[in-house]
């Protein structure tokens, strides 16, 4: 072969990507680039400044911060990355074509690795900014930045390879009958478990704030006794050693990181070679048989006309349980969420944890609706054309999706807010408030999420995560954040009003405890709540009008 297969594959991917950009609306592309640059500069600058300040002011916490940042990066990639690892390594018709061609599996693995890493590399840029900020704050040498760049790349490669190894190992050693389920379980436990480990690490290191022991070979032993043996923290230790000018420790930590990476990548490549075909069969498409109970007596008792709304909900419920990529994306996130909520539950110590609870409920609502609601309509995939053919209005579709998504979101926020209240010993009145807030936020966020997905759907995408375009993702995040801030702000103002009316001024606020100020803050609170509601209405309206005028080329597959 005159040219390497890896190069040929990558060139084809690059061309496809370029053609997609060329076909897109140029105004939209320019707008997105400008938005990304502006947002990136503001956000990146803020993050950099924060990290620099922290690195400067808290020299003793540098090591913990760097280790924490690298672990956070790994956790994030582990949690969100499994579906794309499955998609890039084990699914897709283009992969079939590569298998047919005279290309070695190792070449497919290498070419696909770059592809699989592309999304994670974007995430990694954020961490690179943070790491650079810590370096700037600590007055690190140029070597620090070079090493940071290299180590972040290695970390991304490592996590991607680790995921591929997990999947390949499952495919290799678990009987095919249960391999799909085990794969999902592995994906969830890997992300969730490491997340918990990370949290414990942070609590130990940040909690003690003791000056770091000298990180050299002897400290490796003492480190083993802590939870910091988590490999994802090693590059962090290497970088902090560079800051301290401890060359030997830096070499050791970099060395162990590299060795670990080589081992994992090697294992992934070897295993992949043996499992590519099995994986294609098992994860590449729809399972051929679904375990259904032996033909139960047909359910014919139901009478009355069929209802499109319920039909859509029933179909989504069935498909959710059978779609491995969706499950592998959804379960780790759930574990992540639950772990987060559990960590925030603190036994009441007489302090009022009401605002803590409000924050958790808001976060859970936002998270859950990003998870479920945004993809609700794009997840119809090609089946969306069936809805366009049927006498079903786009408004009926939006309503069905909102109602169906509300059920799990409200159930989970309900459980979490109740759990928080019980553990925190809130009064029934406060508990009721938190529950009402959960309902308000849940309904609003789900409406916004479903609408955002409808505004920018990509029905041809095989992967849920690419099924919502960038505009839709930003619309969902922006809309939900705005709605959440308006709502929580309104609640806070109601509290302020109550306190002012009772004659208690709030320290640090330039408002007197007079009825006039109380009335004013109630008025502003109502206005904020109305603003939140109008965000929801606007999004729903946009979604409906967009779906009604929707026309997109129907590509097969």
């Amino acid at each position, binding site marked *: 072969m005159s040219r390497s297969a890896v190069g040929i594959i990558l060139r084809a991917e690059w061309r496809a990507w370029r053609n997609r950009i060329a076909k897109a609306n140029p105004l939209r592309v320019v707008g997105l680039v400008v938005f990304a640059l502006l947002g990136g500069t503001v956000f990146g600058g803020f993050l950099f400044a924060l990290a620099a300040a922290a690195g400067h002011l808290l020299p003793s916490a540098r090591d913990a911060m760097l280790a924490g940042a690298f672990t956070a990066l790994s956790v994030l990639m582990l949690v969100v990355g499994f579906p794309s690892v499955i998609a890039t390594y084990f699914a897709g018709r283009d992969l079939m074509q590569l298998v047919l061609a005279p290309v070695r599996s190792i070449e497919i693995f290498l070419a696909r690795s770059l592809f699989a890493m592309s999304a994670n590399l974007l995430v990694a840029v954020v961490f690179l900014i943070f790491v650079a900020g810590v370096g700037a704050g600590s007055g690190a040498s140029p070597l620090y930045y070079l090493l940071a760049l290299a180590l972040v790349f290695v970390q991304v490669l490592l996590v991607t390879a680790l995921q591929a190894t997990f999947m390949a190992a499952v495919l290799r050693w678990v009987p095919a009958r249960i391999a799909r389920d085990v794969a999902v379980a592995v994906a969830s436990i890997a992300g969730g478990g490491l997340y918990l480990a990370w949290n414990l690490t942070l609590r130990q290191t940040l909690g003690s704030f003791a000056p770091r022991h000298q990180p050299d070979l002897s400290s490796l032993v003492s480190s083993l006794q802590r939870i910091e043996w988590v490999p994802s923290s090693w590059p962090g230790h290497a970088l902090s050693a560079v800051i301290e000018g401890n060359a030997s420790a830096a070499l050791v930590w970099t060395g162990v990181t590299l060795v670990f990476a080589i081992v994992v990548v090697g294992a992934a490549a070897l295993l992949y070679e043996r499992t590519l075909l099995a994986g294609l069969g098992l994860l590449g*498409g*729809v*399972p*051929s*048989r*679904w*375990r*259904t109970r032996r*033909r139960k007596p*047909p359910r*014919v008792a*139901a*009478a*009355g*006309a*069929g*209802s*499109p709304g*319920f*039909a*859509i909900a*029933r*179909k989504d419920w*069935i*498909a959710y349980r*059978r*779609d491995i990529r969706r499950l592998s994306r959804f379960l780790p996130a759930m574990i992540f969420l639950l772990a987060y909520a559990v960590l925030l539950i603190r036994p009441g110590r007489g302090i009022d944890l009401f605002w803590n609870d409000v924050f958790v409920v808001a976060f859970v609502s936002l998270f859950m609706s990003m998870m479920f609601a945004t993809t609700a309509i794009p997840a119809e995939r*090609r*089946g969306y*054309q*069936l*809805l*366009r*053919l*049927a*006498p*079903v*209005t786009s408004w009926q579709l939006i309503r069905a999706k909102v109602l169906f998504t509300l059920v799990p979101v409200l159930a989970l926020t309900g459980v979490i807010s109740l759990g928080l209240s019980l553990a925190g010993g809130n009064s029934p009145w406060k508990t009721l408030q938190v529950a009402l807030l959960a309902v308000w936020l849940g309904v609003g966020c789900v409406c916004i999420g479903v609408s955002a997905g409808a505004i920018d759907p990509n029905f041809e995408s095989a992967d849920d995560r690419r099924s919502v375009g960038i505009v839709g993702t930003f619309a969902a995040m922006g809309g939900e954040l705005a709605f959440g801030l308006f709502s929580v702000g309104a609640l806070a103002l109601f509290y302020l009003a109550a306190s002012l009316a009772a004659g208690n001024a709030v320290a640090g606020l330039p408002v007197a405890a007079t009825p006039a100020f109380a009335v004013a803050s109630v008025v502003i609170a109502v206005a904020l709540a109305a603003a939140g509601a109008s965000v929801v209405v606007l999004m729903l309206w946009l979604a409906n009008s967009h779906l009604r005028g929707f*026309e997109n*080329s*129907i590509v*097969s*597959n």
Partner: protein
Amino acid sequence: MSQTPHAVEARHLVKGYGVVRAVQDVSFQVPRGEIFGFLGANGAGKTTTLRMLCGLIRPTAGTALIDGFDVFAQPMEAKARLGYLDEEPFIHPHLTGREFLDYIADLYRMPRGPERHRRMERLLGLFELADRDGELVGAYSHGMKQKIGLASLLIREPSVLLLDEPTNGLDPRSARLVKDLLEELATRGTTVLLSTHILEVAQALCRRIAIMDRGHLVATGTMEELRTQAGSAQATLEDLFLRLTAGPESSELIERLLAPQP
């Protein structure tokens, strides 16, 4: 407008994709109970025309009427009467065949109950899908997907069927079944528009045939009318097709392909 509108009417349909003119000024009418065939080379615009008729893509210009209802102005009325089968049927891969048919029936608000159930079982039996219980539609073979797509149309007895290459990928027995079925439906008043590349299917089934070439309707009529138009009473449909859709002779092309390279 006449008392009873045509089952299907295309009025000056045009569809452009940027510079590509996929369909240019296509007009025709199909009366109730007729089987109407679309022929044309690859890329001639058959699929585009059918998709405009069923409301999936909006014409750049022109109107599509189903039973007198404008597909875009009165979509609910038109869609309730219409069944469309795509070249690659739209399905939900994670449902079983039964679940899929149930879903479609619900979308069209068919009454639930034993009547619907019996109909579903009959259709599954007819297309030999009944014993595929527990198998997901996404894992069906190409022909089976085609069959479940057809079944999902027939379960609701639409009065107009738009079928894009319905026999594509079917085994001979199933293809025969579909042909017989369409004929029987037509005698009961269902209107069928189908596109096909199999001239024998068109000749056997269709009362009238339309031939498309590069976005234009180059001929419409019964076999006799097409023959008169082409000026030869003995011509087969294949002759007519080749004559009406321009292109170099295939023997010439093959010679060029296999000629030794200089």
